[in-house]
């Protein structure tokens, strides 16, 4: 009945979700501070990084020194976490393994991000055929059970730390591509992209200076959560003997070695297992926290 009834629609909702004009980093940090669990998760990760750097100099044992006279000692004041079947101090090995674990986590996610994010942005920005082709590739990657894919890739690349980084990294690519594509589509629809296009900006300029900065937050959230998953998958691969090889003090490999003594000397498997759990948990809590801080709905 009403002839001219055009309200004044606006799209602050999408804008708020992706670009968040008012937010900025300071506000994000303030929100993160309010979420105590996430904040302590973050501090704990910093602590872990610190330990992985200076810890190895403080423990007083050699992680590779085989000494059968102290074989399978239960936890004591001398050996906090006991010793393994070769008489090596488990605490020392866990501390040394920390840097390996973090290295695997960070590098595989970095690899996934460096490949996946540009893929996602290009896919979302150009659309059409490129988008269809890339997203089908991503679909195929996602259709594989993650573990199976990682096993397959790790066995192709051979057993080493770098090969699991590649395997887990390739698997992360699809997830980053998805997130980047979705965010790109949302930002691309905003009017300031049209405005800058109307000014004659090149595609590269639009992508690099106007889309990328506005999709960082969902990507950071994704990266934090992916680190946790990558660490878990990497440990599992090493457990299966596809990743780090003995005597590397990698936690998954240590867990695997400890499973033979599970009933008589449970501490050999217990402590590496606990270490994996705690690190993964810390990244997960921190990831959830920054997701809430970036995107308070």
């Amino acid at each position, binding site marked *: 009945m009403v002839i001219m009834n055009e309200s004044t629609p606006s799209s602050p909702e999408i804008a708020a979700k992706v670009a968040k004009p008012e937010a900025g980093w300071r506000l994000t940090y303030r929100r993160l501070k309010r979420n105590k669990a996430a904040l302590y998760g973050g501090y704990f990760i910093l602590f872990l990084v610190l330990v992985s750097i200076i810890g190895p100099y403080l423990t007083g044992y050699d992680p590779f020194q085989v000494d059968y006279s102290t074989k399978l000692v239960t936890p004591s004041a001398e050996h906090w976490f006991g010793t393994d079947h070769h008489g090596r101090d488990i605490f020392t090995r866990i501390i040394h393994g920390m840097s390996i674990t973090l290295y695997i986590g960070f590098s595989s996610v970095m690899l996934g991000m460096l490949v996946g994010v540009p893929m996602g942005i290009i896919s979302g920005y150009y659309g059409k055929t490129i988008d269809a082709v890339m997203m089908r590739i991503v679909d195929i990657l996602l259709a594989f059970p993650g573990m199976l894919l990682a096993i397959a890739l790790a066995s192709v690349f051979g057993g080493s730390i770098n090969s699991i980084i590649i395997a887990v990294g390739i698997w992360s690519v699809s997830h980053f591509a998805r997130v980047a594509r979705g965010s790109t589509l949302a930002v691309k629809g905003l009017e300031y992209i049209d*405005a800058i296009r109307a000014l*004659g900006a090149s595609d590269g300029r639009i992508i690099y200076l106007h889309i990328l900065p506005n999709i960082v937050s969902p990507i950071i959230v994704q990266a934090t959560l992916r680190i946790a998953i990558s660490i878990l998958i990497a440990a599992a691969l090493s457990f299966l003997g596809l990743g780090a090889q003995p005597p590397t003090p990698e936690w998954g490999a240590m867990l695997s070695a400890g499973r033979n003594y599970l009933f008589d000397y449970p501490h050999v498997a217990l402590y590496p297992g606990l270490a994996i759990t705690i690190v993964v948990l810390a990244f997960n809590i921190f990831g959830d926290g920054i997701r809430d801080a970036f995107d308070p709905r």
Partner: protein
Amino acid sequence: MERKALLRVEDLKMYFPIHGGILGGVINHVKAVDGISFEIYEGETVSLVGESGCGKSTAGRAILRLEKPTSGKVFFKDMEITKIKKKQLRAIRKNMQIIFQDPQASINPRKKLTQIIEEALYINKIVPGKDRRSKAIELLETVGLGKHQADRHPHEFSGGQRQRIGIARALSVNPNLVICDEAVSALDVSIRAQILNLLKKLQREFQLTYLFISHDLGVVRHISDRIIVMYLGKIVEMADKNSLFDNPQHPYTKALLSAIPVPMPGKKLERMVLAGDVPSPIDPPSGCRFHTRCPFVKDNCKTEEPILRSAENLKDGHMVACHYFLDL
């Protein structure tokens, strides 16, 4: 009076495919703009009016080639811009700028004011690098913002101020044609008047030509020289402002104009109320698109499509797309 057409639009069509089915093929089209032709002369303000979904904004975007038109031609200063390559297009883009409706979404929230303007200057190499900042500040002052605000971020400004930023950005590259896509619709009434007056002032100062897209007839009456009325992707009437407001011919235009509130209490309004809703642009009515809601509909309206035509008793350039406007 021979005037030069700055922009000429010929049979412009913009269809959006609808994907569906198992294989995701194209099953239909949204015919947002379905063959419109008009001209805009240098220095004038032409308004494109119509209700939501009639294709007026899409027409604006297609003219700027923010969307690639399905068919038809757009000539800017006698150069056809519908077919040219991306690279050539970028080089001439600065001649045609756009001001958007939503001042929230139309500026990158992560940039400072000067950065926004300076980027526009940089892309089109308007001034040498060392003068860029002073030129940006000069532009901000032209649109009524102060030098002290130059290094702030967009979220520190109100809607009206942000719209000024958008205007400064559009002006920074010395355009000939500025498309104002509902540029004042999101603003308060008082701010709206300020921005409209600013646009008028800038038009005189910079010899701008405006294509003003709006649903607000009050605004349109205030600013335009000529008005084009659109309905469901087609032009139904086109005339200069006075003949359109004083002597509307098309039934749809009449209905539109009768909906403008009159600031005179007690005055009896001859309100012409249309029944029903706008039909879907996916499957528009045959014949005259308005026949489903027209109070004067006759049989051949349903089959024959009316063309834009003039008549003796109408002023020059007044065109109407209706079979029976002379009899109404």
